[in-house]
């Protein structure tokens, strides 16, 4: 199929989906309706653009701060797990335990510790997104051929240099793949964290809209949040392809 044909096909698929959605909203229309059609949602987004943008900036900065912390923590933990055989498995298990704590339970604890602050929300985002980075990077480091370590050793490289300069490069595709999971997770966690400790942001906006039974606003927030979450994914994917052009993931569809 040519590019143009594919584009036309996709256009019709999306148009049909939106049309169906609009139709469902139309037949349910009325003051009690819980479904807002795409047209109404678009109207609400335009109408509330400045408010949604402000809320987006708040939530995105929390998520981004959390993600940066998650990358630092995730890489550090992965490298320690790989390099220090004695404590590696314990740290690995501990990471899984921490990650297994439900975000909705973790967020209040962080609020108790740090108050209803940006820090608490960023840390929630971090804890919700660091483990995919740890697991992928550890796996990626292990996937580097053993002979590469031997090559490094035969060139009198230190263990740390072999890890950082050779093996870590093999783990890069896995690291970037993990970002595609971690980044949207951080965004979602930031929103959840806002439910209990924020006055502004997309998460708290959702809650306000729900309590005031403002269906259009609820859907508008949902769409905007989904857009950002998707955009983060796309950006991470693009970075991954640029950063590891030698890897097969940069050639195929992902």
């Amino acid at each position, binding site marked *: 199929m040519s590019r143009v044909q594919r584009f036309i096909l996709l256009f019709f698929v999306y148009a049909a989906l939106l049309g169906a959605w609009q139709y469902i909203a139309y037949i349910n229309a009325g003051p009690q309706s819980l479904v807002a059609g795409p047209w109404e949602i678009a109207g609400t987004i335009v109408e509330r653009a400045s408010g949604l943008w402000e809320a987006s900036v708040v939530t995105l900065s929390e998520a981004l701060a959390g993600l940066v912390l998650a990358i630092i923590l995730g890489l550090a933990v992965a490298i320690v797990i790989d390099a220090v055989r004695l404590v590696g498995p314990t740290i690995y298990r501990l990471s899984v335990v921490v990650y297994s704590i439900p975000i909705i339970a973790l967020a209040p604890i962080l609020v108790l510790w740090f108050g209803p602050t940006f820090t608490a929300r960023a840390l929630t985002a971090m804890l919700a997104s660091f483990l995919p980075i740890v697991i992928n990077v550890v796996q990626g480091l292990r996937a580097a*051929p053993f*002979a*590469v370590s*031997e*090559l*490094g*050793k*035969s*060139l*009198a*490289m230190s263990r740390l*240099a072999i890890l950082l300069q*050779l093996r870590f*490069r*093999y783990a890069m595709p896995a690291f970037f793949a993990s970002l595609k999971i971690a980044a949207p997770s951080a965004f979602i966690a930031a929103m959840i964290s806002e439910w209990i400790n924020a006055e502004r942001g997309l998460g708290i906006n959702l809650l306000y809209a729900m309590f005031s039974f403002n269906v259009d606003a609820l859907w508008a927030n949902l769409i905007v949040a989904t857009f950002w979450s998707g955009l983060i994914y796309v950006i991470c994917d693009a970075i991954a392809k640029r950063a*590891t052009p*030698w*890897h097969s993931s940069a050639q195929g569809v992902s």
Partner: protein
Amino acid sequence: MSSIEVHDVGLTYSSKQWEFVALSGVSMSVGQGEFATLIGPSGCGKSTLLRIVADLLTPSAGSVDVFGESPREARRNRRFGFVFQDPVLLPWRSALSNVSLPLRVSGRSKQEARNRAQELLTLVGLSGFESNLPATLSGGMARRVAIARALTLDPAVLMLDEPFNGLDEIRRQHLNEELQRVWMESDSTALLVTHDVSEAVFLSDRVYVMAKGPGRIIAEVTIDLPRPRTRDMLLEPNFLKLVKDLSATLSSAYAMEDL
């Protein structure tokens, strides 16, 4: 001392429950500039022995001397150039910068490293492929790059661990001729691991035949053929006789369960 001296080397892996003797009582002596080969059945410890000489493994008994240095000193001084079973080229680096890696690692300037790598790529017949990523090289080309990389630092010892594993007969023969050529142009002593009798005879000055259970050297064969050896020699009676004799010795190294 101008040789690689392996004296009574043994390597035993053990835990509370079991003990495995990988190598026992191995001694050999390889003179400077010689091409020596370890041949034997799978699991006889020939790769292990190579790694002990290169200080990638530490023996549990015996001693090794590499031109007057311990294996560790020799490794730290980057005396070994290694070609592994797989070419293990770094997939994110071009052919040229794969070859220059050893120089960059040892702190030489980018320019010097580039020039030397260029020279070596030309030597192995790959000029024009400098900027190719490994994924775009054929199996034979990747192995040439691996050989070039191993020669970058003018190593005292060129370590070849089944370097042409998995290539077909014709490519293999071709690369063996290339290997002989580049080795003859270098001052390196070569240590090859293989299980191919004809390859061993073609390349070596001296062949050590190994057996397993435990891994040990059972025979030492001198190959006294003039160099450079050519593919025409493969069918000459004296070459074939050496192949036949070495095959017979090697056959005795195979235990019944291998056959």
